[in-house]
């Protein structure tokens, strides 16, 4: 059995303008000790998916209207807030994009770590403090015992993210959800934080969900990848298969749109831009949500009905009427990626 199973999750926001279908039928599983990457552009629903798993969506306006989140056999969507609090941090922990705002500026980092430990374990302060120093050492913060009494503003962005990771690890969770953990960081700092997460995952035998807009980050960090578009999963495959043989026109386009750092003709060449922009999730198309931007969409089924997520080959799922491997000889609309 998988450690975490998300089944047909729908999280909608009820606003004055209408119902925003931010997450609209998302299913996936995370196996013990593995890393799942969720990748997509702004507004595709990747963060709302994570917050829904954690029970952290703002209610109202948001509501999980259907589906389930099953952790270790327990359905989290039906748990009381109290029970959920016990579970958060202890079993599932989360780190966020912005290490500048997710720490409390008025408390020392020692206080913030020990308070998390003491929320979940009945231990004296001195012991929690000892554990806090160990944690800071584990996330490779130099002079850990001295830095414990510093306030967050004394730390750089990368160091703050390390503190956040230390807090997340404090109760030895089995699943760590990292929402754009390195987006606010410089590239060299990003590399060291990703290396750290990789080491910790192995040492603690954790499963991880890493949410990012960066294809490079999932290529290095994830075992499996979900590509999200307009609130839905459009492709789900192992990392190698996704990059070797991307199937969904959106995944292909995303990869084509990325500038490369090595190769020939980079300066002269053009990137494969995706025309248009994602649909409004208040009233998304009844048909394929990528249809209006898809170079392969014709007058066929994809303008009439929504494609289902189907397994194209073992472990490779795609939601499209025109996946790459079924497209041989198919007509291409102008501007389609070569």
């Amino acid at each position, binding site marked *: 059995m998988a450690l975490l199973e998300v089944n047909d999750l729908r999280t909608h926001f009820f606003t004055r303008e209408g119902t925003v279908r931010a997450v609209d039928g998302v299913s996936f599983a995370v196996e013990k000790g593995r890393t799942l990457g969720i990748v997509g552009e*702004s507004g595709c629903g990747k963060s709302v998916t994570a917050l829904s798993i954690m029970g952290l969506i703002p209610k109202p306006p948001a509501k999980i209207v259907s589906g389930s989140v099953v952790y270790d056999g327990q359905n989290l969507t039906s748990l009381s807030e109290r029970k959920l609090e016990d579970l958060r941090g202890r079993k599932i922990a989360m780190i966020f994009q912005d290490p500048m705002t997710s720490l409390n500026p008025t408390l020392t980092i020692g206080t913030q770590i020990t308070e998390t430990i003491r929320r979940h374990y009945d231990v004296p302060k001195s012991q929690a403090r000892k554990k806090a120093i160990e944690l800071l050492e584990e996330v490779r913060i130099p002079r850990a015992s001295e830095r414990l009494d510093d306030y967050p503003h004394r730390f750089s962005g990368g160091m703050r993210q390390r503190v956040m990771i230390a807090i997340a690890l404090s109760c030895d969770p089995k699943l760590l959800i990292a929402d754009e953990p390195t987006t606010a960081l410089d590239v060299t700092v990003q590399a060291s934080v990703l290396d750290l997460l990789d080491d910790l995952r192995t040492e603690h035998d954790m499963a991880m969900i890493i949410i990012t807009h960066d294809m490079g980050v999932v290529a290095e960090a994830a075992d499996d990848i979900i590509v999200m578009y307009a609130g839905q999963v459009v492709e789900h495959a192992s990392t190698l298969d996704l990059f070797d043989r991307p199937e969904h026109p959106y995944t292909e386009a*995303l990869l084509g749109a990325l500038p490369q750092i090595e190769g020939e003709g980079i300066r002269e060449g053009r990137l494969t831009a995706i025309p248009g922009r994602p649909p409004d999730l208040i009233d998304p198309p009844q048909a394929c949500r990528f249809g209006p931007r898809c170079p392969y969409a014709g007058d066929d089924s994809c303008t009439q009905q929504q494609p289902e997520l189907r397994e194209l080959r073992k472990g490779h799922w795609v939601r499209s009427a025109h996946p790459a491997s079924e497209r041989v000889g198919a007509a291409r609309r102008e501007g389609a990626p070569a």
Partner: protein
Amino acid sequence: MSQDGVLLEVKNLHKHFPIREGLLIERKVGEVKAVDGVSFEIAPGETLGLVGESGSGKSTIGYCILQLIKPTSGSVRFEGTELTDLGREELRRMRREMQIVFQDPYSSLDPRMTVGDIVGEPLIVHGIGTKADRKIRIRELLDVVGFNPSFTNRYPHEFSGGQRQRIGIARALALSPKLIVCDEPVSALDVSIQAQILNLLKDLQRDFELTYLFIAHDLAVVRSMSDRIAVMNRGQLVEIGLAEQVYTNPQDDYTKALLSAVPIPDPRAMKERKAARRKLRHALAEGV
């Protein structure tokens, strides 16, 4: 006057910001050397990429070139004219030739001005054309950047980030400048929109023979735009050369570390890169 083959020449540029302390009586207690002795040249029609991490001083260089902030010392010559000692009026005239596109299309456009007013403002400031001429020119400019010209009476907030960046670019083009400083023009945009804007900038360069100073932190973005690339670290230029040479055969240790840290969308290559960058980091840590 101008030297052949050089549009812009920056020589030994310094910009130091004072650090002040004290509540009522402020005094200077030190300074930050944001730009610390930087020199380079840009040829007409060329793109020089300026890459570096946050705080490396790359944007400050852009502002110093346009004299949006006064350099502490050093020289900035545009077509042979020294900009650092120009008066207000002369500088205003020079700015017709040099424009800037900012990072954040959400905060760099005046929310109370219509799209048409934003794009047309430089024309009014420089007293170009009649009202009717300007109207035609505005539509032309918007058309060139791929923005629907019939939306001239709308406001920036009605548009997405990519569309707003097009408005910013149209405004920068209004006076037919020779040099455009692009300061992180795509870093606030999603990948698919980023590609649209990068392609647009390439097209405009070809069609209008523009010269770019392209400032960005994303190494792949800089690579795709630049003929030559300069790498900044802590206010200094640590390496400059042809784009391909800098990326395939970096000479400076910082450039090497920077390049090895970039995650690339290739899981197989990533495995090797990960091992290599760990090794490099250990070597650098021991060297210090």
